[in-house]
Every structure is written in structure tokens, then in C-alpha cells.
């Protein structure tokens, strides 16, 4: 089926059924709602600072064309001027005074004329302000922030997966006294928000000399009740007979975990990995509290530092927000195929 015939399929045969209309409205508005802000962010990240503060805003990053003119060190903006006799001319603006501008012909910059502001229109062209992307990396140490974020995310995710899957393995496959109680306690911690425990957590981190260190960001976050619960529920579906077969096959409990349970829980592990990457990458409050050296900032904290007391460097914030989104998108694209594969459900009759 071609894309065309797919898109024009209708429930009511040849005519439009009202559900077709509703479906289109629903889907299109959903698309705009989901992708609109992202596209807007992407396009805006290529605008200069001036273009960002323009009103009304443009969708695409337009910029006034600049012309090199003899006798001036800086390039001058080019305008389309309507003269008093109705003629249209291309002129550069030399200087602006109040509601009038001194304009000159680019060929003869020494002859200037005074033109009212409303009689001219800037000549605009599509231009990408790539310096929004390059400057934070070159001048503002953004690469360092990026590295810190990658470190925190990767290390925290690896530890999260190992610790949580081990807890889930024990809680799903071993019978021991108090198992239900342990699970209940773990789940109960879901009800305690970070802001409630932030001060005690800070004292602990401080007491362990982890303040102002990336490990101080990583360690408190690695054990997540959501992760334990998610993995446990999945591991419950792995048949006990497989574990018993492995036990008969001389496998140690560690081997059973590593070679049997972990590979079979891969779909759930992938889901948790995606969650963990998103949580750690987008984490803001906790890194902001733990990290005080600019050298150690993660991306989110670094983005915040573009926000001065008096002005916000929106062009950098937008560009670096785009950069900060990319890894999550890549991870998601890579791991999403695992989510739908249930390996354990096959193989046993």
C-alpha cells in the first residue's frame, strides 16, 4: 500500500465518515501538540539573539542581509527603501537616529539620505546562526558539561540496572521470610518525594565527602523503587523450571542470575535503561544541590547558568537544549526494539 492510498483511506468508503474527520483532527492536533514545541525549539535554536526577541516571531531563522561597505569597518544592514517619489532602492543603513535612519547607496556610501523608519523594509534571508552551537562549546566549556552529564548518566544507569535487577531477582525468585514486607517497604518509598528527603540526603552525601563530586550525584539515585518493581514483575514471568534446569546444570546462583535471568529480562532491562537515562540526563535539582564547581556542572545545571540575573542568553539555552535532547532520542531509538520483544514467552512449549 502506497503512502498516498494509506493516508486517504476512509472508513465510510468513498465519502467521509464523521469518524474519519475526527480521526484526522485528533491525529493532526496530536502531532502538532507533540512535535510543535520540538520543531519550534529546533528552528529557534538557529536564530540570533536579535531575531529571538523580534515580534511578531518568524518560524524560520531569517536575518537582515549585511553588506560590506567601503569606509565602514563593520558590515551594514541592507534595506529596501521606498523613496518619496515611489521608487524602490536597496540601501544600507549607516546610522539610526530616533524615527529616522541615515541610509546610503552601497556603491556610494559617502552620500547619505534621511529616511523615516516606516519607509524601509529590511532585506531578509534565511541564515542559520550556527554560532549558537559552536560558541558554548568553544568559549563556555559546554563540552565539559556534556562530558559530566554523560558520565553521570552512563555510570548511574549501569549501577541502577545491576543493583535493581539483583534486588528484583531476589524478590521474584527466592522464597524467604519477610519478602512481602521488603517489597512493600521498597514500594512505599515511591510515596516519598525527593524534596522531602533532600536535606537528610544532603547531610549523608556531605558526611561521606561526596559533596561537589559527580559520585555524589550518581550514588543516591541508583536504587529506584520503580526499577525494582518493574523488573520484579517481569521476572515473575520467567518460568521457575528454567532456573531449576540451570540448578541441575550445576549453575551457581550468580550464574543463574547472569546467564539465565538477566538475558531473559532484557526487555524490562531495556525499559529501565531508557527510563534511567532520561531521569539522570534530565536531572536538575539534585545535581544543582550537590555540584558547586562550574567544572563539574552537568548539562542541565550548565543550561541554568546561561540564565543570568538580568538577562537570559536564550540563543545558547535553546541551542544547548537541542544538544541535550539528542542522546535521549538516540538511546530511545536504539533500545525501543527491545521493549516489544518478549523473549521469555517463547521457548517453553
Amino acid at each position: 500500500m502506497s503512502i498516498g492510498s494509506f493516508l486517504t483511506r476512509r472508513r465510510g468508503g468513498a465519502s467521509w465518515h464523521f469518524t474519519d474527520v475526527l480521526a484526522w483532527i485528533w491525529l493532526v492536533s496530536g502531532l502538532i501538540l507533540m512535535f510543535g514545541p520540538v520543531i519550534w525549539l529546533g528552528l529557534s535554536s538557529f536564530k540570533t539573539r536579535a531575531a529571538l526577541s523580534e515580534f511578531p516571531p518568524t518560524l524560520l531563522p531569517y536575518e537582515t542581509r549585511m553588506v560590506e561597505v567601503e569606509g565602514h569597518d563593520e558590515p551594514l544592514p541592507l534595506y529596501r527603501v521606498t523613496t518619496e517619489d515611489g521608487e524602490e532602492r536597496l540601501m544600507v543603513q549607516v546610522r539610526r537616529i530616533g524615527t529616522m535612519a541615515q541610509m546610503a547607496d552601497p556603491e556610494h556610501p559617502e552620500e547619505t539620505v534621511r529616511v523615516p523608519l516606516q519607509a524601509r523594509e529590511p532585506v531578509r534571508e534565511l541564515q542559520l546562526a550556527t554560532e549558537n552551537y559552536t560558541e558554548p562549546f568553544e568559549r563556555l566549556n559546554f563540552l565539559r558539561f556534556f562530558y559530566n552529564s554523560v558520565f553521570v548518566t552512563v555510570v548511574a544507569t549501569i549501577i541502577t540496572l545491576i543493583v535493581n535487577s539483583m534486588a528484583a531477582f531476589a524478590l521474584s525468585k527466592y522464597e524467604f521470610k519477610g519478602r512481602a514486607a521488603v517489597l512493600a517497604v521498597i514500594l512505599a518509598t515511591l510515596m516519598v518525594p525527593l524534596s522531602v528527603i533532600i536535606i537528610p540526603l544532603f547531610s549523608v552525601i556531605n558526611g561521606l565527602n561526596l559533596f561537589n563530586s559527580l559520585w555524589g550525584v550518581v550514588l543516591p539515585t541508583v536504587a529506584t523503587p520503580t526499577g525494582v518493581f518493574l523488573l520484579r514483575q517481569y521476572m515473575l514471568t520467567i518460568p521457575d523450571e528454567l532456573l531449576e534446569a540451570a540448578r541441575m546444570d550445576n549453575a551457581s546462583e550468580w550464574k543463574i542470575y547472569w546467564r539465565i535471568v538477566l538475558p531473559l529480562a532484557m526487555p524490562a532491562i531495556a525499559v529501565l535503561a531508557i527510563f534511567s537515562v532520561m531521569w539522570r540526563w534530565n536531572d536538575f535539582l539534585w545535581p544543582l544541590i550537590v555540584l558547586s564547581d562550574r567544572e563539574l556542572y552537568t548539562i542541565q545545571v550548565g543550561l541554568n547558568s546561561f540564565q543570568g540575573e538580568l538577562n537570559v542568553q536564550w540563543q545558547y539555552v535553546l541551542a544547548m537544549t537541542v544538544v541535550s535532547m539528542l542522546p535521549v532520542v538516540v538511546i530511545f531509538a536504539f533500545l525501543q526494539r527491545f521493549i516489544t520483544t518478549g523473549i521469555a514467552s517463547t521457548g517453553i512449549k
Partner: protein
Amino acid sequence: MSHLELKNVSKSFGRVDVLHDIDLEVMDREFVVFVGPSGCGKSTLLRIIAGLEKVTSGEVVLDGKVVNNVAAADRGLAMVFQSYALYPHMSVRQNLSFGLENTSTPRAEIDARVGEIARMLRIEELLHRTPRQLSGGQRQRVAIGRAMVRRPGIFLLDEPLSNLDAELRVTMRAELAALHKRLEATMIYVTHDQTEAMTLADRIVVLRDGRVEQIGTPLDLYNRPANRFVAGFIGAPHMNFLEGRFVVGEGNSAEVELDGGHRLTLPISVRPAGEPVMVGIRPHHIGLDAVGAGIPAAVTLVEALGPETIVHAEAAGHRIIAALAGQRRIAVGETISLFFDPQHLHAFDSEGRRLPEGA
């Protein structure tokens, strides 16, 4: 050398007692089958031998050593599970070699053994496949191969054929029997299917409600069932039972009057008159009485199987199944006269125990 002994083994799950004082000895190279209806504890017993369950009381003795506290892995046994329990994320080759890898067997030796087993079970061309790409019979072979490759002292098989279709089951049954001869291995096999038990076993252990009902060779169990349960469980179609009472007979024989008034002479010693008795007769030991002097029965169903004809009939309020050799012209509704072979009559007392045979 593998010799297994169970001494007074009992098992409870919480308050539920599933096994009561099981005593059993399994000799080297013996093929022992645990058979019984579902819920009789036969799988639990197998899992206790395997080490996957702990006994509540009693001892499991393996080659003279009590192994109650020895972990499953260290007992040197191998188990084939009902669901096969092949590792779904590993290829057949990995499935077969997993156990050997865990005992740090050298790679060359692993490859040699896996190759040998694959040849023996004719699964060589499947080695690179994953379990989900195999048919039921192939999975079955891989599961048996996984047990064989470790050269265990005893093979434990938990209803290994129950997931196969009827035709394949018969083939695999024969293969298993051949394999047992070839490997000269001790095998303990759990099934609820008495045909499997009869065809495979050197000795059968009949279990019911966690108790051993009888242990014996298949023909022992068939010819001399220790009680009514074993009599009804072993043999297909199952044994017919008719209620009656002993009467004073002529001379030295025990005579019974059935509920319908018909009299039979049993091959047992004389019992006091008036004592209730359950007479059992296998369908294959029932014939037609040519002169019509037998027990009259109204035919309710006729199953013509070709080599034999199974006749369901009603006589004196009892449903009776008779397996008559050859093809017979019998119609539903007809009244036939049944003849019970007196040599093959079984008698059980009111508690269901077999009454001792006469001298």
C-alpha cells in the same frame, strides 16, 4: 554405579502433607516409573530426589551417602522437565554445553561430548537453532540430550512425553526405551499414563495421595494388583468391578454371589459366608458364553477397533466393559451372555485390599 534409597521420606507444604513415609530402593541401571493420578505426589517425589525440594522428614541416600543437604547441582543427577525448560535465549549447542561449562570442562571435551550426543539423538543439524525454532519432538530430544551430556548417575524424567501428540509419543517412548538400554543408565520416570509406565518400566511405583500403593514389575501389577486402586489404574480399558457376597460353596472353593444373583467361583481360599467382596475382571478376560449360561448384559455401546471389539454393557446394575478378540456382530440394545474367565478373577475385601490366593 548409582544406587538410590528413600527412607521414610515425608513432605509437607505448610499444613498439606503430600508424601507419607515413602520407602523405595532403586537399583543401578534400573528403569523405575512413578505412576499415579495427578496430585498424587509423584512429581514432588522426583523433585526431592533431584534436590529441588527438601524432605520434611526421612532420608535420601545416594550411593550409600545421605544427600538430604546436598544441593541439586552436586548430586550428579540430571533432570528432563515436563516443559523441557530449554534456555530460550541460547542455541541448542549452548543449551547442551551450559552444564559442562559450569563444571569447567575443557572446551575440546565439551565440543566432543556435545557432538557425540547430537549424533546419537540425530539433532546435529539443529545445533545452531534456538529452542523456539524447534518442533515439540526436537525440543524433547534436546532436553534429553542436555541431561545425557553430563553423564549423570541417574536420569530423572518428569512427564517428558506429555506435551507431544499421540503418534510422536509412541515413537519417543520406543526411543527412550532404546536409549535406556544403550546408555545402561538408571532412570526414574514420572508419568500419569499407565501405558507409558507398562511399556517402559522395569519396576513401577504406583502412588496415590502421597502413599505408595504398590511396587512391582509391570506384569506383577497387572496380574496381581495389591488393591482395588492399582487394579483399576493399571491396564486399559480399566478393570471391571462387581459387588457380591461370599456364599457357602461346594468343597474347597470360594464362591460368590453377585448382586444380580449370578454365582462365580474365585481362585482364592474359602471366606466366611456373607462377607462382602469386590470381584474384579479385566475386559480382556471376558468372553461370550456360547450356550447363554453366562451373565446376561444389555449392550450400550460397541467400539469396533479392528483387531478387537470393545463392548460396553450393563449387567445387574454394573457397567461392564468387555474386550472381545476379533470383529463381532453385536448391536446396541442386544442382550449378550458374558463369560468370566475364572482363572483371571480378582477379589478385594471391603477396604479394597486383595484377598490372598488359595493354595
